[in-house]
């Protein structure tokens, strides 16, 4: 599945507690991104710190560390990852206190819209001068 480590590919992290959404997004994006998945904020934080992530698709509602929790944890560490925040609840923006230069999309999302937003989040990240975030590094 996928082409891990392809040099030209940006690394996309999908953070969602639903296995089918993780699998679906991997199947959807594996031909243009190096897709890695995490099932909650804690796992995502480890991946970000260890592997370096270019952009993420982040679900808000998860057991253990949820989306807002992960964003706060990244803030504390001074790490900024371009992100598209997704939620199955309508009132997305109200649920995230820090803006982080985030993109938002509501579930169920249109696949092309999600991809456009991932692209936009990446551009924002590059405008802000950040390369891929690495453990304890950029920020």
């Amino acid at each position: 599945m996928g082409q891990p480590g392809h040099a030209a590919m940006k690394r996309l992290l999908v953070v969602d507690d639903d296995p089918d959404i993780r699998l679906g997004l991997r199947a959807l994006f594996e031909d243009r991104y190096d897709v890695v998945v995490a099932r909650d904020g804690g796992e995502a934080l480890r991946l970000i710190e260890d592997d370096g992530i270019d952009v993420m698709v982040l679900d808000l509602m998860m057991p253990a560390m949820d989306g807002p929790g992960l964003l706060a944890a990244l803030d504390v560490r001074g790490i900024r990852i371009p992100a598209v925040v997704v939620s199955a609840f309508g009132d997305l923006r109200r649920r995230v206190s820090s803006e982080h230069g985030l993109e938002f999309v509501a579930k169920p999302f249109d696949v092309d819209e999600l991809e456009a937003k991932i692209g936009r989040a990446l551009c924002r990240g590059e405008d802000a001068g950040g390369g891929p975030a690495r453990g304890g590094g950029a920020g």
Partner: protein
Amino acid sequence: MPSPVDPAAESPGRGGAPPPEDVFRRLVESVPDHAIFMLDPGGRILSWNLGAERIKGYAPEEIIGRHFSVFYSPEDVAAGKPERGLKIASSIGGFEDEGERVRKDGTRFIAGVSITALRDESGRLRGFAKVTRDITERRRMEEDLRRSEERFRLLVAAVSDYAIFMLDPEGRIASWNLGGERIKGYRAEEILGRHFSVFYPAEEVAAGKPERALRLAAAEGRFEEDGWRLRKDGMRFFANVVITALRDGTGALIGFTKVTRDITARKRAEEQARELASEREARLQAQAANGARSAYLSMVAHELRTPLTSLKAYIGAMRRKQAGGGTIDRDILRRLDAQVDRFGKLVRDIGDSARLEAGRGLELELADLDLGDAVRETVRFHALAVGGAPGARHAIVLLDSAGPLPMAGDRGRLEQVVSNLIENAVKYSPDGGPIEVALATDGRDHTLTVRDGGIGVPPAELPRLAERYFRASNVSDRHFPGLGLGLAICREIVERHGGRLEIESRLGAGTTVSVRLPAKGVRRGGFEPPTRGSEVRSSVR
């Protein structure tokens, strides 16, 4: 008047005692508060006593022999008052008068005077006895009292916010004031003498309320109540009434005072305040119910959006693969199918809940089946779903040594129970671990057990766990989406099969759900109603 000789003759002091006239004279002379003196038939003063000296200011030697008109004011003398007094006394025996008199020093006082004509045995006028008291002080007090009563009467009459009136001992109205006129609508001349029960509504009169009020006031001194009263025009008003018994110095009942206030406005205000409060309460309850409903609908929407999202993702992936000339992954197709099933199950759960909500039970389509077969198939499906991805955290283990488990039941519904229990076990053990599904039988009952090592349930909440919409506090706190329907529907299905669903759990240490189904309990065409309800308990290990 008895002869002065007679009492002396019978006196125990006879013999050594002075003559009775002398005793009497000395007694009179020493009386300090009354001027007692004699006049000759023409009005000249013949004797004088201590009281006379005190009251009028003259010593005996200054006044004896003078005409008694010296005590009158010049106006009274000019009007012939002194002579008139003597004339009346001599013609009818006595004369009494109250009027102004003059002291030696010219100051005036109010005197109570009595003049008695003194005649000898032949009836000849010998003179007059005159007794004079200074009643200035008494007059002043009487006047003060009169003025005070007058002021009080005027005050009561002028009070317009209170009906203040008197009743005689039988309850007839004896006085009336402006407040009575204003509040009750009667003028004094219309109401004086009428019985006060005229102010009571007919039903209260029939119930004997007015008499009871007087009886209580007479017995206890005071009676107070709030109640409806009638105006002259028939309108009702809400009154505060105080009735007080009036008694004279001997304690005899002489009547009642009655004070009535119109408190209709106050009562209305209180009622309005009460109504407002209860409306507010109702509104808050409705808001709370709306809040719960909208939270529930929002959770339903969330639950439906999640499988839709993965469906969109899978379909999007297939479309791209096809557009790029690639082949469609069979695994994706299988998952797509599973997602449609998941979506369908959610819709079914919501529909089931609506049926239960409406008081209609779930209907079973009964057939002979092998419970072991149904459970194995369901476990296989879920094992693929949770264990199919790399890094899967859960392993579903089936402990099945029971052989075939024949029973009559609704296979689809029983699979729904197994699915629900496995899904719960997966969902509520976020750190992964084995999920153990066990089958057993004793020939009479088949037992299905689903055990996880997950977050468990707070013991106090266990009894409510299988209630519809109930969600344990540790899952609603920790962002586990869900509708609170699964277990309630499972219990309903199990009980419809004549079985029981039991939950054991320890917070932080996992949950075990056991389902006992009678091997022969359900027959086609009807089944025995469950004899025992499902049990939930917290096990202590």
